[in-house]
């Protein structure tokens, strides 16, 4: 099984019915897609499969051999955020962060297919994503700003250097 993940060709050896989510997290150590409900209901695992937002927990490897996958790791870097990432930063649209990857991917896919998405379209597009702390208002404001092009990535201060991040508890979910 071979995938292109964030622009890099990767061979996978997990069984074909393994979910893309499990393969990304446990075989490739790509941990921005979160394992929330594992049944398609929370949106936290959403990634781009050939450019379209999909629940990674509902996609088995067998169905996507040869596909191109983009996760948040492939959208931008800490010093060069994507417009949606920058909008989330500017609008303080994350709190605990567990749902954020899924929202960012869903919003990226929405703006890709509807560059001037209106508020109603944004609400509909994000409606499968559950946030239990920020409360949606700031998330929706961020996506509205991104859709309107009202983002300023150059003003975002990188809040940490990725290479300085350390795993405090080995084996804990990132």
């Amino acid at each position, binding site marked *: 099984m071979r995938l292109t993940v964030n622009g890099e060709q990767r061979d996978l050896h997990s*069984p074909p*019915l393994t*979910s893309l989510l499990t393969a990304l997290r446990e075989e490739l150590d790509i941990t921005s897609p979160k394992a929330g409900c594992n049944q*398609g*209901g929370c949106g936290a695992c959403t990634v781009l499969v050939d450019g379209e*937002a*999909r629940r990674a927990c509902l996609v*088995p490897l067998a*169905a996507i051999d040869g596909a191109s996958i983009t996760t948040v790791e492939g959208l931008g870097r800490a010093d060069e955020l994507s417009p949606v990432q920058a909008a989330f930063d500017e609008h303080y649209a994350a709190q605990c962060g567990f749902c954020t990857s899924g929202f960012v991917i869903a919003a990226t896919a929405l703006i890709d297919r509807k560059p001037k998405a209106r508020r109603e379209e944004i609400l509909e597009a994000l409606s*499968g994503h559950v946030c239990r702390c920020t409360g949606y208002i700031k998330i929706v404001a961020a996506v509205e700003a991104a859709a309107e092009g009202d983002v300023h990535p150059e003003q975002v201060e990188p809040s940490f250097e990725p290479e300085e991040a350390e795993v405090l508890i080995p084996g804990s979910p990132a």
Partner: protein
Amino acid sequence: MTSTSLEAAQFVVPTSRDEAVQAFGDGSGVTVFAGGTILMPEINYGRLRPAHVLMLGRAGLSGIGHKDGAVTIGAMTTVAELEDAPEPLGSAARNVADHEIRAQATLGGNLCAPSGGGTPRGDLQAALIALAATVRTAGKDGERTAPVEDFLAAGADGRLVLEVELHEPKRSGYAAARRPHAHAYTILAVCAAETSEGVRVGISGAGANALRARHVEDALAGGASAEDAAQKALDDAQPQDDALASAWYRQRLLPVLVRRALDDLGGGK
């Protein structure tokens, strides 16, 4: 459960309809994998360990066509592709979950959906009943076409859904109980359509599969008002308790939704 590890599963990935039919055979021991939105949770949680998997993704079973005034819809057509389908199918499709699920879930999967944890699934079934749709399947005795309510009554075991055929109705109506920002399965939905054989009414959410509200249809055919005909819905369906709603609530909601769907029908379209 026929095997115990994900490694043990054997795959067939047909690249044509004929290959899919041949690989399915009589369906014995075959797990049909369409969109995956229902199967993958079962696999993720270890409740299902398929031995023989028929992956339909490349079998060429998707797409909406038109022939002799009929609309044909392939089994692998996604729910998202049905959002603009003839009403009330379009409304039922738009009411399913969220954009990402609709882009993955398929018509065939929805027709074959068993109830999950006691909650009825298969939101599109009521619309197909209202539209007098027929379902073409393959299996032990070859291919056959049956009215959708007969297909649902017999169950999907041993049958591979190939396509659905329906006609644009003269008028249509739709009403559903929806909880905003809670994409559980639909609590209750009612579809109505005026077809060449009169007004037909389908109900999703009041049984393991959607059902046809014949008492309501007969009352309408006999000249009853929408209000009076709607009361007959409780002769057609005996809603159950589940995690989404109580039987008590559904019993009170059902005649209201039937009346709304019939009013919607009366409004024309």
